[in-house]
């Protein structure tokens, strides 16, 4: 069983470049020795970078944990600078990754040069093909320094030799819980044959950095959020009583989550009696909540399957959307989205997002953001690549009078923001809320007796989820290719309605190998083709038997 060793680094008084590494025991720090930083760590970020360099220069597998994507990029740049002259120009994996970033993201994306010295950063909103390749190269030791944000707690499984960490937060402003700290720390020492891993906590004696000292390794009770809120019965009851008349921007997110859960439970089951968080409450509380919800549910006639398919959206909100449709007295067909190839498509998304903000939740807010959100969604759905979207964003920014020259553009920030809006808007909020919008609209068309006017082929939720709008692209993604590779490859197919079998027929010939595609994309296609051929032969073997 690998066991992390917790060390702590801190500087000596008056000699900022000289640091002591101590081993953390029960309540004690035992000094292990000194190490020198190659320069004065004048900022917190430099401190992280220089400690990582001092301790990880001779090995691979050094993970630096920082709190924001911006810090990740800056600390990585400082580590890169400290490795001047150590370019790995011969390594084809690193060169391919650099080439991919240059062609598919932007020539000014920092990874283009960072990876050449075996340094990378990692955060949640990167496209998956890029993130997975960084993880792979870090695991085999070609990327030696990885600077990461809290995405590593949220599902990414990565082993390493040394973790450098300082006053960890989860996202912006929230202190990391001891459970999350140990989840992260547990990654140290799973590196191949290495038995022990090091966790280096920087500035451990500073109270403002580590307010509760180092997190202790004890069992922490986990409490469900719904239970916590049911405990605050008074505020929940008050909230439920007001909920039906609330505007979307008055919604309290913490209470809304529980209220929505309880309301849809009662709508489905007829009573709250068996709802898990209620079973633990007193009978009086259960009855009171039951009664409060009952009156809100009286006027609701949303189809059960729509409520079930949208667990994060309150039944009251769905009903408000339906009421909007019922009161809408222009042609109901004008409530439908327009396919992305049509010029009016963006304006229609703006209109629909306005309705979503008004009825479901103010997710595309403030109001000035509705248009940018609609543009991102539109670009995404019509299959623009991330690279094209970044180039578009940079072009629009460049037109603003505050930037006089190209150099003044904050490239790193704009590239990161474009990635974030793709992940958060196009891949998360838009499919979720547009999906709910369309299913309520479909019910409304049914009740008006005009179901035949609701287009059957309207698979917007699918288009949005995958960011494509043709059958060919959906097939490519269905075969297991990333969106990035799918879009690059589909450019070479004339038809937009190819099935998986038809695509595989074309790929099996190997002609695609000579296409002008980044090496990383080719590797992915090769893997998919091999797997599909194997699957096909296994299936036909089975059929013969």
């Amino acid at each position, binding site marked *: 069983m690998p066991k992390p060793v917790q060390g702590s680094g801190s500087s000596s008084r008056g000699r900022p470049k000289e640091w002591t590494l101590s081993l953390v025991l029960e309540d004690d720090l035992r000094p292990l020795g000194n190490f020198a930083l190659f320069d004065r760590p004048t900022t917190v970020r430099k401190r992280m970078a220089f400690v990582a360099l001092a301790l990880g220069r001779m090995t691979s597998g050094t993970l630096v944990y920082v709190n924001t994507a911006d810090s990740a990029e800056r600390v990585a740049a400082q580590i890169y600078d400290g490795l001047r002259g150590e370019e790995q120009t011969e390594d084809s994996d690193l060169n391919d990754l650099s080439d991919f970033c240059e062609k598919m993201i932007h020539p000014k994306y920092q990874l283009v040069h960072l990876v050449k010295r075996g340094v990378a950063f990692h955060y949640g909103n990167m496209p998956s093909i890029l993130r997975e390749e960084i993880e792979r190269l870090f695991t085999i030791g070609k990327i030696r320094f990885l600077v990461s944000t809290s995405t590593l707690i949220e599902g990414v499984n990565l082993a390493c030799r040394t973790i450098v960490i300082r006053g960890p937060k989860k996202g912006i402003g929230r202190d990391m819980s001891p459970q999350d700290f140990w989840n992260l720390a547990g990654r140290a020492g799973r590196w191949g044959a290495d038995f022990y891993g090091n966790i280096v906590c920087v500035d451990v004696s500073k109270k403002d950095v580590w307010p509760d000292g180092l997190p202790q390794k004890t069992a922490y009770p986990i409490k469900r959020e719904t239970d916590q809120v049911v405990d605050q019965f008074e505020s929940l009851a008050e909230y439920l009583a007001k909920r039906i008349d609330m*505007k979307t*921007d008055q919604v309290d997110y913490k209470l809304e989550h529980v209220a929505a859960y309880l309301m849809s439970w009662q709508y489905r089951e007829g009573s709250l009696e068996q709802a898990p968080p209620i079973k633990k409450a007193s009978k009086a509380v259960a009855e009171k909540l039951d009664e409060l919800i009952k009156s809100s549910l009286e006027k609701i006639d949303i189809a059960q399957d729509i409520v079930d398919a949208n667990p994060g959206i309150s039944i009251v909100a769905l009903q408000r959307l339906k009421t*909007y449709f019922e*009161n809408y*007295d*222009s042609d109901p067909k004008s409530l439908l989205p327009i396919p992305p190839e049509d010029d009016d498509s963006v304006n229609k998304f*703006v*209109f629909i997002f*306005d*309705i979503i*903000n*008004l009825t479901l939740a103010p997710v595309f807010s403030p*109001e000035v953001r*509705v*248009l940018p959100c609609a543009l991102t969604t539109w670009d995404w759905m019509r299959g623009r690549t991330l690279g094209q979207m970044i180039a578009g964003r940079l072009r629009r920014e460049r037109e603003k009078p505050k930037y006089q020259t190209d150099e003044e553009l904050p490239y790193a920030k704009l590239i990161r923001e474009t990635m974030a809006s793709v992940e958060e808007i196009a891949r998360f909020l838009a499919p979720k809320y547009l999906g709910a919008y369309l299913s309520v609209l479909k019910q409304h068309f049914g009740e008006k007796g005009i179901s035949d006017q609701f287009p059957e082929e309207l698979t917007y939720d699918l288009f949005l989820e995958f960011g494509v709008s043709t059958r060919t692209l959906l097939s490519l993604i269905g075969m297991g290719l990333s969106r990035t590779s799918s879009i690059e490859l589909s450019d070479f197919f004339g038809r937009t309605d190819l099935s998986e079998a038809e695509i595989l027929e074309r790929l099996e010939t190997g002609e695609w190998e000579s296409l002008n595609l980044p090496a990383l994309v080719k590797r992915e296609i090769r893997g998919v083709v091999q797997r599909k051929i194997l699957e096909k032969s296994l299936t036909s073997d089975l059929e013969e038997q």
Partner: protein
Amino acid sequence: MAKAQPVEIGEIKFPRKGDALKYLQSMLNSYRFEERVSDDDQTFLLNALNHHPDGKEKLGVGLDYFFVRRADYGTKCFWIKRLDGSVERFSYKHCVP
């Protein structure tokens, strides 16, 4: 310099023209896109529309209700829903004499 002229719209007296404009602007901003105007505000807006040079044409066959929707370049605007179902937008800035 000329003394500021008070403005009267419906039952409300504004000391200056600018105050009336400010009142209408904050009314507009209190609504979200696609939201209907409340009954109280509707009464005031109808009075205001009397001062609009094209108010009569804008109202046409008569008002069903007011609502807020986007106009050119995504700007916020009051709209009229007429009794025959047609819609028309108007600028609140032209409603102050």
